[in-house]
Structures are given as structure tokens and as C-alpha cells.
């Protein structure tokens, strides 16, 4: 018993170190979730596990599982639209069923399929951060018996850290897109203003007229204004060749 506890603590602290290491580098979300569910299955002495994440419309999708049995039981649950994992996601709180045979009546379809696949108990942990529910991690055991409070806490702690990584990654992806759009908008404007300067000098005209000439040239040829501006600055085109109408 002592031995088991020590081993588990060692595994757990190794898991946290690995998570922390992963989160400071570029990581693949699916790899991270696979690793998380495998680790939790191992540490909490269960036989299978799966992770479901909500898609942008709020529907749960299975993204990781440790075995074909786990995948099947998760898919049955999603298809039936009812099960402990769905309840966990809806409420944002852990759901533990220590004996599916005795206590699975709430979700008959799920319980029947889970028992057929050899699972006798299930524990669902919410993936959540500051009130945002992003999915659930579900562990399945061949034995009856609810997870003890300490185990529930371990599962939640690992899930919490992984969720921070997940949300940061999502946030980062959006931020990169926004930063790219901003850069493109500013760079385009700088090119356009420089091109106005080039045209105003070569054509001995005003900035406004230079802009109108440039825009007309771009519209007539169905070219992006930014590209025309870039070509004017690089002196690759001469917009004066066009007869202004």
C-alpha cells in the first residue's frame, strides 16, 4: 500500500513537470490531450479514458481516447445525447458512477453499451477555466467503486493545467491572426502613402490627384491597390501611360 502511494506520487509529480514543460513550448493540442488521458488512466488505476471537447457550436466531439473500447463508449454516449460525461460538461462538475449496473439507470443506452464493453464504473472530470467549460475527460474502469476524493482532485488538477494550455493556445491562434491583419493594414497604408508621394512628384500633381490616378489604374485593371502602390514605388509600372478620361 505504501509502495503504491509512493509510486503514484512520483508519477503524479512527473506528470506535472511534463505538463509545465509542454505548456511553455509549441505543442500540439491533440498530442497533449492524448498524453493527459493516458497519464490519468494510468495514475488513477483505471483501464480506459477519453476526452471530449466542445466545438465552436458547443457540441462535444471526441478528440482523444486510450482504446477502441473507450472510443466506442464515448461515441455511444454522444449518439444517445445522454451520459455521465455529457452531464459533467453541462454542469461543469465531476460526475462519478461507482457501479454502472446498479446506478446507470439515468442513462440506459450508455450504461448498457458500457457494461457490454466491460466497463463497470466511470468518472467524468470537467475541463474548465474561470467559468468557461471546454470539454470533459472521462475515465472508465473494469471494476466497481467510485473514485475517492483524493483521486478526483488529482484528475481535476491535471485537467485544469491542461485546460490552461488549451485555452492559451486558442487565444494565441486568434491573436496571431489579428496581429497579421493589423500588420497588413498598416503596411498597405504606408505603401499607398509612399506611392502617392512618388506619383505626385513624377506627375507634378497633388497628393489627392495622385491617389485618384493610382486608384483608377488599379480599378481599371482589377488589381489590389496595395500591389499597384508597391509597383509604383518599385518603379515597375508607369500609371501615366494610361490616358486619363
Amino acid at each position: 500500500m505504501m509502495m503504491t502511494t509512493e509510486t503514484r506520487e512520483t508519477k503524479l509529480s512527473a506528470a506535472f513537470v511534463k505538463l509545465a514543460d509542454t505548456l511553455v513550448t509549441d505543442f500540439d493540442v491533440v498530442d497533449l490531450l492524448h498524453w493527459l488521458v493516458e497519464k490519468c488512466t494510468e495514475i488513477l488505476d483505471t483501464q480506459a479514458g477519453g476526452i471530449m471537447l466542445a466545438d465552436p457550436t458547443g457540441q462535444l466531439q471526441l478528440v482523444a481516447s486510450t482504446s477502441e473500447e473507450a472510443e466506442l463508449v464515448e461515441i455511444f454516449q454522444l449518439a444517445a445525447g445522454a451520459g455521465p460525461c455529457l452531464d459533467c460538461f453541462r454542469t461543469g462538475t465531476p460526475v462519478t458512477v461507482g457501479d454502472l449496473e446498479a446506478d446507470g439507470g439515468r442513462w440506459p443506452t450508455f450504461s448498457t453499451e458500457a457494461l457490454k464493453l466491460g466497463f463497470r464504473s466511470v468518472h467524468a472530470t470537467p475541463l474548465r477555466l474561470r467559468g468557461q467549460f471546454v470539454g470533459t475527460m472521462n475515465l472508465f474502469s473494469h471494476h466497481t467503486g467510485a473514485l475517492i476524493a483524493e483521486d478526483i482532485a488529482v484528475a481535476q488538477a491535471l485537467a485544469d493545467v491542461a485546460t490552461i494550455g488549451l485555452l492559451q493556445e486558442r487565444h494565441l491562434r486568434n491573436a496571431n491572426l489579428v496581429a497579421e491583419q493589423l500588420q497588413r493594414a498598416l503596411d498597405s497604408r504606408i505603401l499607398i502613402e509612399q506611392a502617392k508621394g512618388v506619383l505626385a512628384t513624377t506627375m507634378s500633381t497633388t497628393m489627392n490627384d495622385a491617389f485618384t490616378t493610382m486608384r483608377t489604374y488599379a480599378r481599371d485593371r482589377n488589381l489590389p491597390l496595395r500591389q499597384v502602390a508597391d509597383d509604383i514605388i518599385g518603379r515597375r509600372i508607369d500609371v501615366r501611360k494610361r490616358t486619363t478620361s
Partner: protein
Amino acid sequence: MTDSANSEARVPEPYDVHDLCRPFLSSLPVSGASVTVVTASGARMTLCSSDAIAARIDELQFELGEGPQSSVALSGQIVIVPDVASRGHDDWPVLGAALGELPVGAIFCVPIQMGAVTVGVATLYCDKPLALNNHQQTTALAIASAIAGGAVQHAMVSAIDDAAVESPTAPALRREVHQATGILLVQLNTTATIAYARLQAYAFANGRTLQSVAHDVVAGSLTFDDTPRDNTFP
């Protein structure tokens, strides 16, 4: 965690572009602030300055191409200069000297971040030397992150507007400077990069602001085709 502080520092919407500076002034013991977006390509747009000194601190860094703003934009780390007069400022000697002529005691450059991406820099100054404690730094970072979305939005709207009006406390993209760059590249028969460098050098050598020189170039009262080289590079 900074992250939770970020989500709690809220900016009421809708807000005017000058509201981007205001939260720094109401929450921190600083004299003035400016907010600038900076892209990875080095393009920058000043969105607002709370006063003429804040505007000049920002403009100097644009003109000289050096200063803490650039290092913050690259590193995403806050830069604290608690006593502007006390240091040699090895990283930005020219700016350091120019700041000495302004009533500025301390400068703080705060990254404006969306997630891990730095989209701009808020530059705060105090008229006397001042060190920001950890709590104040966290507040500054939280405000900066809270205004990030608004700053980017204002910058994009202004950038795509062909007739955007630029005012002294919100010089925006400094369009005349880029127009003047276009004029100079024709006059000097060179590239935009070199034309811009010549404009910068001329302004610096003659102790003038880049914008006023650019204005003269655009107005046609200053031409560079006959400017002797030794006048532009002292």
C-alpha cells in the same frame, strides 16, 4: 496571475480613441501616456497621447528609430526607466539626450498584448523620477492587455480610411512622412528605405521634427535633389 488581472480590467464600450490612454492616468501615478500599435514589420501607428510631452516622447522614438518602445515590441517585456537623468542609456543614446531636454523624470514602456502576441506599446511618463512597484506594474500590464482589442480595432479602421484625419495628439500613421519618403525616392532616385533614412537624418541634423521636415517636402518648399551630402550627415 496576470491573466486573471487582464480579464478583470475592463474598458467600457463604446469608447473614443483617447479613452485608450485614460485608464493609465487614472490608475497609476504617471503624468501622461501614449498608446502606439507596432507590427512585426516595424510599422507603427500612434493612437493617442494624453499631452504634448507624451506625444513628443512617442514621436522621438519614431523619428530616431531607437528607444525602449522597440525593445518592448520585440521582447514583450515591460521596460522601467525610473530616473531618466541618471543613466547613460547605452541602448538609446540619442533618445536619452533628447529626453534630457524634456520635463521627464521617468519612463515606462508597457507591452500591449493579445495572448502572447505583442501588438503595441503604451508609453507612460512621470515628470519626476518614479519607480513602479510590482503591483503598479501588474496594473499597467493589465490595463495594456485590456485595451489591446480596442487599440487594434482603432488602428485598422484608421489605416483603411483613405481620408483619415491626423491631429497633433493623435498623429496616427504620420502619413506625410510616408508621402515625403515617396517624393524623396524619386528626387534621389533611390529606394524607399534609403529615402526614409535621408529624411530622418536631415531632421535630426537640423534639429527639426520629422513631421515638419516631411510637411515641407510635401509642400514643395524643401527639395533634396540638390542637398549636399555633408549637410545630411554631420
